[in-house]
């Protein structure tokens, strides 16, 4: 069933009795050509592009819980392409361009809204760093504008410009950046993939990888064994646990990241704002809640919940640039398990096991990457060649001495 304004109108006239489930709930088959482990944004996007762009006919996505229950349904939905380094920026700009056509491609309203992101700067040195970043972005075809304090004031007059320690001097603005509805991204990809015959198997946890003579032959799941020629792993925070089934150790640690939302308020912030002197970022959801977050808790965790020192730190930072936030009441806070890599950049690559492919290390920035991650992973699975925009994301780059370290923090995952 195609969604359209006409369809909505027609359904309204007959009491909305004609809507059908957006995807099937099939029984697992004994064998598929390609299995994708993980029904998050990346796994579902991979399946969609495999079926729609690479003509794959026999694909299943295996999800241990329900699709969208992982980080794709827990993030703060910021989509941007304001990276500095060569290995990253073309990939994220590719992703942003895919976002711009995503809803037409999927025939699904993901509420992608290009409301702009502004990264505030508070010192001369930081301004210089942002000029450099903005130039790097523009060299790769992305948009970037440097604003002075008056320029920022015109957008957000209520920011605390005269903070004694961190006065706001200006900001780097990317107008094409924005936010999307996270659940709708998972659902839209799931529906589009399902319509092309991809089986989405929920409550189907992979418990073992079947490897014979260095080749993948299938997987064991809680819904029985499934044979396959190729297996792609896209399980975000659980990357180390799944790859351990193939005897591989990864350059990844799992850490918890928290996020927060206030009660619904009248429209206040129409874009995304980030604080440059601490770690705090904020936007407003279409329901009116202020959605914000900051740093990792900083220690290995699979708990999907964090501790209180981080909320204190995040809210202190928020108060520093936006004192008005002190009047809002917090509605909810939650955590997700991040696959923090050793350089803060992702991995999309083959593995030493033939037919086994890995996609992970997304840290806290994988939502924006969803379309390009899916497309480039599908490209790798279908052709055995890396996609031109994802050639740097190799598994062996650490051993070879080619990390992609935006933060410059070294092999210390909790600092990226």
């Amino acid at each position, binding site marked *: 069933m195609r969604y359209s304004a006409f369809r909505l109108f027609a359904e309204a006239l007959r009491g909305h009795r004609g809507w059908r489930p957006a995807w099937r709930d099939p029984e697992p088959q004994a064998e598929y050509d390609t299995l994708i482990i993980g029904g998050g944004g990346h796994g579902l996007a991979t399946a969609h592009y495999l079926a729609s762009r690479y003509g794959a006919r026999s694909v299943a996505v295996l999800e241990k819980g329900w699709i969208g229950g992982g980080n794709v349904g827990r993030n703060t939905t910021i989509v941007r392409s304001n990276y500095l380094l060569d290995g990253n920026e073309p990939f994220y700009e590719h992703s942003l361009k895919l976002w711009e056509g995503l809803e037409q491609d999927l025939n699904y309203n993901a509420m992608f809204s290009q409301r702009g992101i502004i990264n505030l700067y508070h010192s001369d040195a930081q301004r210089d760093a942002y000029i450099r970043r903005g130039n790097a972005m523009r060299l790769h075809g992305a948009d970037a504008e440097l604003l002075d304090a008056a320029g920022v004031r015109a957008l957000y007059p209520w920011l605390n410009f005269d903070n004694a320690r961190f006065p706001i001097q200006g900001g780097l603005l990317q107008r094409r950046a924005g936010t999307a509805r996270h659940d709708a991204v998972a659902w839209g990809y799931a529906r589009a993939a399902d319509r092309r015959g991809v089986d989405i198997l929920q409550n189907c946890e992979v418990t073992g990888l079947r490897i014979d003579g260095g080749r993948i032959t299938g997987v064991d799941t809680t819904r029985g064994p499934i044979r396959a020629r190729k297996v792609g792993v896209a399980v975000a925070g*659980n990357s*180390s*646990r799944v790859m*351990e089934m193939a005897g591989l*150790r*990864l*350059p*990844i*640690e*799992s850490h918890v990241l928290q996020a927060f939302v206030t009660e619904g308020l009248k429209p206040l912030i129409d874009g995304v704002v980030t604080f440059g002197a601490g770690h705090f970022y904020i936007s407003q959801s279409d329901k009116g809640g202020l959605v914000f977050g900051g740093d990792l808790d*900083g*220690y*290995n*965790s*699979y*708990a999907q919940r964090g*501790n209180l*020192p981080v909320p204190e730190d995040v809210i202190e930072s928020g108060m520093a640039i936006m004192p008005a936030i002190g009047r809002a009441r917090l509605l909810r806070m939650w955590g997700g398990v991040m696959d923090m890599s*050793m350089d803060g950049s992702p991995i999309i690559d083959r593995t030493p096991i033939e037919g086994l492919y890995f996609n992970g290390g997304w840290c806290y920035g994988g939502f924006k990457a969803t379309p390009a991650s899916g497309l480039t992973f599908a490209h790798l699975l279908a052709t055995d060649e890396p996609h031109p925009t994802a050639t740097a994301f190799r598994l062996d780059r*650490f*051993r070879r001495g080619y990390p992609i370290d935006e933060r410059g923090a070294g*092999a*210390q*995952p*909790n600092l990226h």
Partner: protein
Amino acid sequence: MIIHHPLLGPRDAQEFTYLGDATLIDRPDAMAEGALEAFDAYLHLRDNPAGTHRELWYHEVGDRSWLVVTRDTRTHEITQVELARDVALSKGRGR
């Protein structure tokens, strides 16, 4: 989280900074055969278990000792805290 420091008693985890897996104590021998592979694994590869994890915490705003904390990464429950010095010495490492 409260970390029960072996010398100072219960301390708030905020007084500490976190380094990572306690296997970082086992620094490879740079002169040994296969040192390149050993250092790659030491620097970059982690077990990253969901469950019991032995890890290094530094008492930065306290007595500046390094601790080995045994903690469950699924629940954050801490079951053992040792001085990293004692752990290193018991493995036969000097300074």
